[in-house]
């Protein structure tokens, strides 16, 4: 196993071994690029990367340019995880056969995909990769919407969010279904490591990514990725919105080891009301009408219940 990279401080972290170029077409304020750099900068090892079709892919590999200074592949919307799994299988084959060009390296295999490409259309492919035990990491850039195609709902879109295919209107408050609990589903495959991360909590992120890269077998990471365009906030506020997401416990940070050992990795000193998180984003604006205020109350209850459940699981080690 390769040596774990030591990171002194944020400056060191944000500048070392950068293999994702700032020259890309992502929106100003997009959290995707921040998350990708945090994942990549967590290691000095060689990388074999994929991106499923989506914002990250169309903004970073437009011929004749590439933003990737590492091996990278895109095939389609649903199969980025399997692309990396195939490459990992080839690595194992060539290792067995003694045909690796650089046999002393310890490459890490990482697939990036949005929530649409992970929770919806790519669900089966990711489940297959997790079940088969490939030594790879799948990272979801979870912005809770099909952002690349203009803001349609996915199964990660939360209740009450206004999207272009579940819009708020005269008789609708927008999305009616609750977000799929993808981390639990993936952890239930019995994989060695599953975790939820957020780009504002970079130390927590590095720890989890490094842990994920060190274990043998498939790893699932769900990263909250606030979307300035579809969540409707000012591009300068990305980190502020992320702080609200983690500190309101809408996106609790935790990990699940071997499918059962749950650890909460961040406990906000001051838990802020969910209402504050929602009020900061245009996608929930319509919920602040009197007739929909009960939904905000329901949101708070749901977040409280989820947090209590996580705490019970942590205590019970199940």
């Amino acid at each position, binding site marked *: 196993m390769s040596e774990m990279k030591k990171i002194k401080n944020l400056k060191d972290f944000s500048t070392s071994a950068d293999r994702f170029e700032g020259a890309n077409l992502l929106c100003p304020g997009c959290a995707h690029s921040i998350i990708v750099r945090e994942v990549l900068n967590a290691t000095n090892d060689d990388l074999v990367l994929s991106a499923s079709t989506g914002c990250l892919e169309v903004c970073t590999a437009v011929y004749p340019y590439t933003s990737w200074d590492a091996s990278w592949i895109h095939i389609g919307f649903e199969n980025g995880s399997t692309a990396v799994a*195939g*490459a990992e299988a080839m690595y194992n084959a060539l290792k067995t056969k003694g045909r690796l060009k650089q046999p002393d390296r310890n490459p890490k295999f990482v697939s990036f995909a949005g929530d649409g490409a992970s929770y919806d259309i790519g669900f089966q492919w990711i489940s297959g990769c997790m079940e088969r035990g490939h030594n790879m990491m799948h990272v979801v850039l979870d912005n809770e919407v099909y952002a690349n195609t203009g803001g349609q709902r996915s199964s990660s879109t939360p209740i009450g969010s206004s999207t272009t295919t579940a819009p708020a209107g005269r008789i609708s408050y927008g999305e009616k279904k609750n977000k799929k609990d993808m981390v639990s589903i993936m952890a239930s495959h019995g994989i060695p490591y599953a975790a939820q991360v957020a780009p504002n909590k970079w130390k927590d992120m590095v720890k989890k990514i490094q842990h994920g890269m060190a274990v043998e077998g498939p790893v699932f990471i769900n990263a909250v990725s606030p979307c300035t365009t579809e969540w409707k906030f000012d591009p300068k506020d990305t980190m502020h919105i992320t702080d609200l997401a983690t500190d309101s416990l809408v996106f609790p940070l935790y990990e699940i080891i071997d499918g059962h050992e749950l650890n909460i990795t961040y406990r906000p000193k001051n838990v802020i009301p969910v209402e504050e998180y929602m009020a900061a984003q245009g996608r929930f604006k319509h919920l602040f009408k009197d007739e929909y205020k009960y939904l905000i109350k329901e949101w708070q209850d749901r977040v409280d219940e989820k947090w209590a459940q996580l705490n019970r699981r942590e205590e019970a080690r199940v």
Partner: protein
Amino acid sequence: MAFDKMELKDIEVWDGNFAAAQALRQCQIDVVAAYPITPSTPIVEGYGKFKADNYVEGEFVMVESEHAAMSGCIGAAAAGGRVATATSSQGFALMVETLYQASGMRLPIVLNVVNRALAAPLNVNGDHSDMYLGRDSGWIQLDAYCPQDAYDLNFIAFKVSEDHDVRLPCMVHQDGFMTSHTAQGVHTLSDDVAYSFVGDFKPMNDMLDFEHPVTHGVQTEEDWHFEHKARQHNDLMTKVMPKIQAAFDSFEKLSGRKYNIVESYDMSDADVCVVCMGTSVETAREVATEMRAKGIKAGVVGIRVIRPFPFFEIGEALKDVKAIATLDRSSPNGAPGMLFNEMAGALFNTDTKAMLSGYVYGLGGRDLTKAHLVSLYTELQANVDAGKVTTQLQQFIGVRGPKLAFL
């Protein structure tokens, strides 16, 4: 742990599936990512058993769908090594998205397609619907008529597909059940001879070369997409056929078995001929011989290379014949039929005076009988005698109910 070699008899009794699995074993594939489907399943099962018995050293990844099978093959091929899989019918249809991605990304992958009908209605038997579905996908397509061909053409497929001037994936087709499950004598190559024919895999733009990072599968819009597609078509049109011919030539030197881009039988003086693919070629050859005993100068043209389409070779094979029947084993669903259209295209603008008529047969595994072909050749001779096509241009043969004919 090094893998074991297998001692083969000079002639083994294999069905088409096992012949293909043996060829894959001898080529020592680095990654097989696959999913089972009738009638190609025994290829994957056979390969899995070779792996279990230490006859192959590569990775064998049983994925959760055919789409994932080809997706995994694409990732593995981009990583830089020898890759193959097998499928049929619905599985092939599920793969179609990734077939275009594999060829557009210029990745050498060999796909054994055991031809089977497409639902609905659901049917597990052999016809050419899946093979036809692949014909615009940018792959090379080779057609086997029997288990021997299925064995031999796999070696040709790797040789051509992995050539750095080509770098295009290749399908090897065989007829479901008629070839895949029918055991025949297959002349074998020894493991060493077979492997040395295909040679070691030579990587290019491989993702596992960390000194030279590469980006695979980029986005191109109206600015560059056309140029990429045009380059791929150009290579299919100009580079592939000479490589296939060269591979056929060197394979003949090695094995004594001669393959041709277009297979012509009794065509030198033929007045009438059928153009067909798969197991029907052998049936037609037998009937043509019998027709000659009756005084009808009958011949057969088999398509060996479906894509790239052998435009000039077909024109040459058919230049002196007077009446041609195309045999399409896939419902044209509102058109004359793929072979009819391709023959018409290849013969138009030539000096031919030949009459062309099309026949649709054998859907869902319905037998093509010798009696069908006798009456077909008889109709062609009647066309020759009358100096015009005496039937409708498109006829269905072997289907129950009132005679179906169109155009």
